[in-house]
């Protein structure tokens, strides 16, 4: 049962990622992106990262994807059917992409990764919080300043008459 659901999530992720890249309609691309992000959240569950799976759904699907949909709606006239978009150099790009994927997969399969067997932890949130407050305190504070800067910058940039 676990294997079947794992395989299903795997195919969902990769298949809808293909949909994001190949779909002609931008709205369809965004909807496919939703399923890709959902599939990645499922893979996080299989990797024992329950908190990250929740964060993935809350921030990526609830935040970033809605933002992207807003962007599509605001930059195209909704009444016009022409929300499609063209691509350039599909052949060369496809060949380069296949070469890149083959190269990365070759590296991933050939390298003898150092594996440490471990038990499934009882909780991950507490450990992440401890890491954030001890080893990663400075990056945590810098991230908060970055978010404030992005907030102000985005609001300033998207004002009508500056």
């Amino acid at each position, binding site marked *: 049962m676990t294997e079947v659901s794992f395989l299903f999530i795997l195919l969902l992720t990769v298949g809808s*990622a293909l949909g994001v890249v190949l779909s002609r309609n931008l709205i369809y691309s965004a909807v496919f992106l939703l399923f890709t992000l959902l599939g990645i959240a499922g893979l996080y569950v299989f*990797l024992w990262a329950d908190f990250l799976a929740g964060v993935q759904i809350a921030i990526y699907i609830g935040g970033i994807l809605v933002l992207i949909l807003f962007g599509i709606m605001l930059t195209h006239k909704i009444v016009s059917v022409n929300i499609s978009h063209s691509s350039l150099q599909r052949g060369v790009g496809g060949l380069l992409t296949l070469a890149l994927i083959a190269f990365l997969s070759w590296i991933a399969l050939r390298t003898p990764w150092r594996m440490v067997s471990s038990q499934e932890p009882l909780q991950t949130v507490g450990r992440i919080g401890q890491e954030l407050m001890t080893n990663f305190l400075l990056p945590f504070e810098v991230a908060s300043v970055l978010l404030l800067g992005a907030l102000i910058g985005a609001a300033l940039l998207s004002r009508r008459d500056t």
Partner: protein
Amino acid sequence: MTHSLSIYLLVAAILFGLGVYAIMTRRNAIAILMGVELVLNAANLNFVAFARFGGMNSSGHVFALFVIVLAAAEAAVALAIIINLYHNLHTINVEEASTLKQ
């Protein structure tokens, strides 16, 4: 199958390649942004997979969290720029938007 590192690395490699393909071939700025999101997610998947198979180290999770934070900030600023571009040039085709001012 759920207990092998390679399958996660393969999925991440495919997602990364597809994201790069979108960045390379798409003309629409928002579609390029979607490609960037795919690339960031592939990197995140690698972080979490290595955290899981490298002794359940929480540092990988923290790094993935930081990547998500950066992706949120990047999407907000990028969409603000794209909307500004659309107001000024009435297009979000990255090939037509090649000038720095109107």
